[in-house]
């Protein structure tokens, strides 16, 4: 029977093409109206370590969370089989390369010792020999899995021969094998795959043809499995969908928002955003020029923030993008921006810390760094996005807030969002506005820091007949250094009082969104990448009669304490559960700081892997039904 949705893992060594497999499949599925979400898990490594795609496809909706166990495990290599033994569900399918059937666990050097030892232990416990074949047999026997062996070598040899491809290039077609095998299982039509390949290999008809042959060869080898894991007809009604990572979506938002200067120093998982922007540094469409956007790779993150601030002073919408280690280096500049009321945007993608930590894994552990790093007191705004769609609009709104209130804005995201490919509806730009704030035309008597208003009208460096001064030192209305205590109090207060103004002026939908049941029995609180999985968990729990709501916090600073207090008061405090990808679940502490309400129930995950639906449902149940206080999640290889 066709399924409503389907989970899979595509795994292989880094550099072997799992990412290509993902993109081709996701695009082909979208083409047919399916919703897709795909998380990329990879090491801080360029070639050889185990990487995998965890993907969910839905016929019913645009999916927003991942789930275990999976229906399909497509393995390019032996390591994938060993690593994911626990991840396959009942009656799932394993695609593997018959060439590795006899491979032993100990023959896999790229696998970390701790992992290897754990797997070895587990296999010993299960009474399974640490050999691929035995593991596959075990999966077949214990889970009723369909085990589908394909001789990769054989497929590739056939291909090489037919197309006279240099055998040294054979490995490039492995991704095609994975795409093909999955397509066959799902019963995906050939046309969608061909179309997707043709976008992937734009201008390389030969590659498209070769990969379509791979599909043919694979199909021949697994004919009996055609459509065994087919999906329902999609019920989505979108006529267009975007297939994009969070990095891409934010890049698009920034460009629509009027970005004109983007600085960056390469860092995972932020750098791809700047690459995307660079591709669109200048466009001519319908006779309209969009740009130029100067994308500047700086010598470090200090220069990234400082040059972005400099650019902002000229009136250009300016931003930088980074992750934790880079943000640390930006903090002194941020404090200058605060002191000088500069509208600059920092897109901050969290990854696993502390220090280099797990640079290619996800985390939400930098909340307090974003809120509080930087010496001295000054106004800043920190916003977070719950998913790709929010991120697009928030990327624009970040500039609006920055310019309206003349404050630095931190747009706090994470690696999960950055690297996750999703099907996203097209944005509606009619809903979008650009607010540039109070702009002055300057003149001879221009005072950049006019004390008569909370927001002093801003002229730009370069405004005709206008000069102005900026100083990190406390300054007078002209921007000259002044240490007088009364001026100090006025200027200092002016800058900080903007926080109240921001809280007053931003509409509720910019501060939070509340989802689920109207009068809930319990309330889940979170921010950022918790949203998708929390919403799906609520739906699942509702089926079990557990009626909850989800509070998605978007404006993290200034903290909307009144709204949050009100919402939290509607539920007994021990039915409030904070969820975060961190150890400390800082959002609970932030709420306590603002409202005095101490949330004691928490769900934490800090393996670097995203929270999946199954484990969150389970955790919430334990908390709600078994009165557990804290659950630490660990699912995912």
């Amino acid at each position, binding site marked *: 029977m066709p399924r409503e949705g389907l989970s899979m893992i595509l795994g292989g060594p880094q550099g072997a093409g799992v990412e290509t497999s993902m993109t081709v499949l996701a*695009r082909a599925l*979208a*083409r047919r*109206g399916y919703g897709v979400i795909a998380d990329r898990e990879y090491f801080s490594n360029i070639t050889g370590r185990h990487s995998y795609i965890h993907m969910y496809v839905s016929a019913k909706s645009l999916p927003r969370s991942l789930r275990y166990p999976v229906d399909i495990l497509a393995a390019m290599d032996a390591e994938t089989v060993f690593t994911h033994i626990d991840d396959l569900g009942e009656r799932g399918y394993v695609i593997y390369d018959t060439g590795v059937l006899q491979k032993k666990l100990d023959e896999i050097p790229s696998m970390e010792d701790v992992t290897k030892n754990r797997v070895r232990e587990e296999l010993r416990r299960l009474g399974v020999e640490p050999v691929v074949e035995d593991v596959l047999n075990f999966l077949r026997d214990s889970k009723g899995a369909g085990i589908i062996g394909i001789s990769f070598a054989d497929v590739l040899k056939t291909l090489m021969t037919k197309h006279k491809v240099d055998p040294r290039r054979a490995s490039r077609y492995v991704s095609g094998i994975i795409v093909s095998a999955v397509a066959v299982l799902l019963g995906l039509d050939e046309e*969608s795959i061909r179309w997707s390949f043709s*976008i992937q290999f734009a201008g390389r008809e030969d590659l498209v043809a070769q990969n379509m042959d791979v599909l043919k060869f694979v199909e021949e080898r697994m004919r009996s499995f055609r459509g065994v894991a087919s999906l329902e007809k*999609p019920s989505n009604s979108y*006529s*267009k*969908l*975007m*297939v994009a990572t969070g990095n*891409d979506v934010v890049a*698009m938002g920034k460009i*629509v*928002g*009027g970005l*004109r200067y983007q*600085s960056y120093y390469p860092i995972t998982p932020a750098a791809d955003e700047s690459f995307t922007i660079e591709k669109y*540094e*200048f466009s001519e*469409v319908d006779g309209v*020029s*969009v*740009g*130029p956007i*100067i994308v*500047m790779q*700086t*010598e470090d993150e200090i*220069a990234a923030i*400082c*040059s972005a601030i*400099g650019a*902002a002073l*000229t*009136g250009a919408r300016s931003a930088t993008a980074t992750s934790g280690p880079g943000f640390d280096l930006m903090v*002194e500049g941020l404090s200058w921006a605060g002191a000088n009321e500069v509208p600059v945007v920092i897109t901050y993608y969290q990854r696993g810390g502390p220090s280099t930590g797990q640079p290619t894994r996800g985390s939400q552990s930098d909340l307090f760094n974003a809120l509080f790093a930087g010496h001295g007191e000054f106004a800043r705004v920190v916003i977070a996005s719950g998913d790709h769609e929010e991120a697009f609009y928030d990327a624009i709104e970040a500039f609006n807030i920055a310019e309206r209130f003349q404050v630095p804005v931190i747009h706090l995201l994470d690696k999960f969002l950055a690297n996750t490919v999703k*099907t996203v509806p*097209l*944005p509606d*730009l009619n809903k*979008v*506005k*650009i607010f*540039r704030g109070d702009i002055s035309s300057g003149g*001879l008597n221009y005072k950049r820091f006019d004390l008569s208003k909370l927001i002093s009208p801003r002229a730009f*460096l*370069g405004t*005709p*007949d*206008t*000069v102005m*001064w*900026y*100083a*990190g*030192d406390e300054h007078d209305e002209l*921007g*000259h250094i002044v240490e007088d205590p009364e001026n100090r109090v006025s200027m200092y207060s002016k800058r900080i009082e903007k926080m109240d103004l921001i809280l007053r002026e931003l509409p509720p939908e910019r501060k939070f969104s509340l989802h689920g049941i109207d009068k809930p029995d319990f309330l889940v609180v979170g921010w950022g990448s918790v949203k998708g999985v929390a919403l799906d968990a609520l739906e699942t729990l509702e089926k079990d009669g557990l009626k909850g709501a989800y509070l998605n916090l978007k404006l993290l600073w200034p903290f909307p304490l009144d709204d949050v207090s009100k919402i939290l008061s509607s539920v007994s405090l021990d039915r409030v559960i904070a969820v975060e990808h961190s150890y400390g679940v800082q959002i609970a502490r932030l709420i306590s700081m603002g409202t005095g309400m101490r949330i004691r129930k928490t769900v934490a995950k800090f393996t670097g892997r995203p929270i999946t639906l199954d484990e969150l449902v389970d955790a919430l149940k334990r908390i709600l039904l078994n009165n557990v206080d804290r659950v630490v999640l660990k699912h995912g290889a």
Partner: protein
Amino acid sequence: MVPRSYKTDLWIDWCPGCGNFGILTAVVKAFEELGLDPSKTVIVSGIGCSSKIPHFVNVNGVHTIHGRAIAFATGIKLANPELTVVVHGGDGDLLGIGAGHFVTLGRRNLDIVVIMHNNGVYGLTKGQASPTLPMGVKTKALVKPNIQQALNPIALAISAGYTFVARGYAFDSEHLKNLIKMAIEHKGAAFIDVLQPCVTFNDVFTAEYYRKRVYKLDEQPEWNPVAEKPEERVEKMIKAIEKSFEWGERIPIGIFYIDKTQSTLEERYSQRIPLYPSIHPAKSNITRDVDKPLIDNNMFEKIFKEYIVDVEHI
């Protein structure tokens, strides 16, 4: 452009006799003689005694954080290439904490001028050794003689890729003014190392000391520091670096090196984006109909077509 005095009327809080006064005079005079439009001119500085200079000049002033003036200036210049951007900083600012940015500007050849107030000490923090103070020297405030060696700013700038490298002396304002004018007129990254007596903390490299020793390269008939053609570059560089090691009884000031053969960063951007720099980040539209984004739904789909899938149910 409304005429303004190039000096503000603020009280200047440098110590009486400080070399910074000479530099200020030279800057103001240079701006005046070039007739720079104050509203199109920006002085960007770091932190230190020297970095207070923007407040005393009546053009735009951006007094930033310690060591980062070049980074701020980079954003300002790239976002609005119409501006004349001059960076001022101390030797600690530019070659201590800021050395990374200093070196990087060389390899960018962005069209800005960097003027270093070289006083051998950290003035504003009360006289610690700066990266240009020679080893073993014990200026007034040091607990022990300086344990680190001095950098050679001229050699460093040339090695890093600056295309205009000169040295001035604070109390020869006329000569310095001319260097500043040339540096501003030069297209590309320009660096002027200014010997600047600090009367309060540097009792070794005093005005007296320099007065006896400085001599002008431009008065040496055989001195021609300009590389007009690519094949002259290495030779001129090497000569300049060699000259920069002359430091003792005689100290050369003037132009060490000019390279006219290199493109500026702005020029390279304009090769990528033909409208730049005439249309630039600070002067380009981002809205339509007052408050709508320039990009509408239709344009969005065209620009980002590679992300967009036309769904075809079958």
